[in-house]
């Protein structure tokens, strides 16, 4: 049996219209003659959302007793037994009470998909595991219900429901998100313009990364066809940037890392740090201290420190560039070359030759060598 088609509506915050859009698209499918049923809907007492659901069949919820309170949950066996062509299941990050088939709703959805039923679902960006910390730092609000990022990766389509922060605040003020008595509290806490702007950026970036990762996993056959077709095929290659900085366990590398991080921030991209270590050389003493410092710095910045053991620096870098899909390579200024080393081609040139075409190499000067004034 073929797995169902999975579409996720992703939003930066409550109230952007994910559920509304899911219902709208579900309704359109129903009007086109498909068998559509609501597996679970959380209308949050929003009039517009409830109206959008009107006329669509709803699989009744089941009542579950949890801590002596009766709660209503999605009836997974009911949905599977009803077997619609398309099930609309709201809030995939929801945690089920103990005793149900799965701990999380996204696992229920996986079972529905496995039964060959198409699913539309919704999630807010702060529920994604890897973004949870970042969102909490940006907004000061941490959500407990998280889902692995891979859940987004399993979707056939991710639709970002975008709204400007100002428009969302206007919706909130108009009472379209929360009831009147909660509006002021929401505006003063989570729904501040700066919070929403940061969340919007995170959401947009997440969807861009999702598109990028799907592109990277696609098998690209030998490029044939007209020139126009080849150009179209090559266009997505230019979308994502990834920065790789070549470091060594030495204090001078920290400046390179800072520069690289700043560039990564500007490009809105990930940063990898690479140290190519000579085989057999132990990491001890001062080297160990410096590696620990680099690791610490990478962790603070959210960068990835890679340590590769290889005799040939250029070959190792070229391999990592290919594996990580790096588009920028940053290297520190080489030390003055002595003896026979003068006869060799400089490192940046060798790197340019060894790495794929289109990878830019940038040299970061040693501050000490220029005698800059403060």
């Amino acid at each position, binding site marked *: 049996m073929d797995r169902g088609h999975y579409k996720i509506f992703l939003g930066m915050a409550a109230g952007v219209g994910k559920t509304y859009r899911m219902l709208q698209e579900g309704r359109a499918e129903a009007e086109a003659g498909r068998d559509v049923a609501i597996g679970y809907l959380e209308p949050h007492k929003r009039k517009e959302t409830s109206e959008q659901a009107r006329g669509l069949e709803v699989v009744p919820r089941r009542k579950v007793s949890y801590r002596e309170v009766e709660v209503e949950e999605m009836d997974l066996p009911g949905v599977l037994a009803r077997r619609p062509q398309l099930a609309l299941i709201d809030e995939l990050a929801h945690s089920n009470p103990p005793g149900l088939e799965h701990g999380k709703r996204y696992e229920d959805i996986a079972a529905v998909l496995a039964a060959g039923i198409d699913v539309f679902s919704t999630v807010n960006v702060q529920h994604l595991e890897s973004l949870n910390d970042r969102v909490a*730092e940006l907004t000061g609000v941490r959500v407990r219900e998280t889902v692995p990022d891979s859940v987004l990766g399993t979707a056939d389509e991710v639709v970002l429901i975008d709204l400007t922060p100002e428009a969302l605040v206007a919706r909130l003020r108009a009472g379209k998100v929360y009831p009147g008595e909660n509006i002021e509290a929401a505006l003063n806490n989570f729904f501040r313009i700066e919070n929403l702007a940061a969340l919007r950026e995170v959401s947009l970036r997440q969807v861009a990364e999702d598109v990028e990762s799907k592109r990277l996993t696609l098998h690209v056959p030998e490029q044939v066809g007209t020139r126009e077709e080849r150009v179209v095929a090559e266009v997505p290659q230019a979308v994502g940037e990834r920065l790789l900085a070549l470091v060594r366990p030495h204090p001078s590398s920290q400046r390179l890392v800072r520069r690289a991080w700043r560039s990564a921030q500007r490009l809105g991209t990930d940063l990898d740090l690479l140290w190519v270590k000579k085989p057999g050389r132990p990491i001890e003493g001062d080297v160990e201290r410096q590696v620990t410092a680099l690791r610490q710095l990478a*962790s603070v910045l959210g960068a990835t420190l890679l340590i590769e053991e290889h005799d040939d620096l250029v070959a190792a870098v070229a391999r990592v560039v290919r594996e990580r899909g790096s588009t920028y390579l940053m290297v520190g200024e080489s030390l003055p070359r002595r003896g026979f080393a003068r006869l060799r081609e400089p490192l940046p040139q060798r790197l340019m030759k060894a790495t794929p075409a289109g990878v830019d190499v940038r040299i970061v000067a040693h501050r000490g060598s220029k005698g800059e004034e403060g």
Partner: protein
Amino acid sequence: MIEHFLVGLALLLGLFGGYLIASSRWRGKRSERPQQVHQILLPFTGTEISRRALDAALRLARAEDATLMPAYLAAVPKQLPLECAIPNEAAKAMPMLEAIEQRATAQGVPVDARVERGRSYRHALSRLLDHETFDRVVVSATATGGASLSGDDLVWLLEKAPAEVLILRPGPEDHRILAV
């Protein structure tokens, strides 16, 4: 003719052999050199640092041929894992470290910077003391532009730091700060 060639070849081989011996000795000496740790710690927080504290640390570092270790202390909120990425804090720390390094390099002082996380500034400092070695700590007792360590923190530092602690008295120049 052949004799000249042979003499030239012998000369070249001799020079090459001499180069190899000299370079191996140089490498040997370099590896035998003791790993002397001689560092001055300059902890700070936020986007400014007391110019007096920085200048004092740089003067000492120059006089003692030491390395300056500016350390940005970041307080990670309790709801976040201690080892998580802190981009907002990093955005403050990186330009400050850059500015300090610029000033230090202009005075010929080598720099080996750190960023340390903790639940509080004192906790971050404590974690730094656990895994770094230094000979002196320079902090400013002023409320503005100092290390943002409280009086209690400074007492704690005096008790715990396995190094000489230099606490600068509040002075008329305390309004001078290095800020980004």
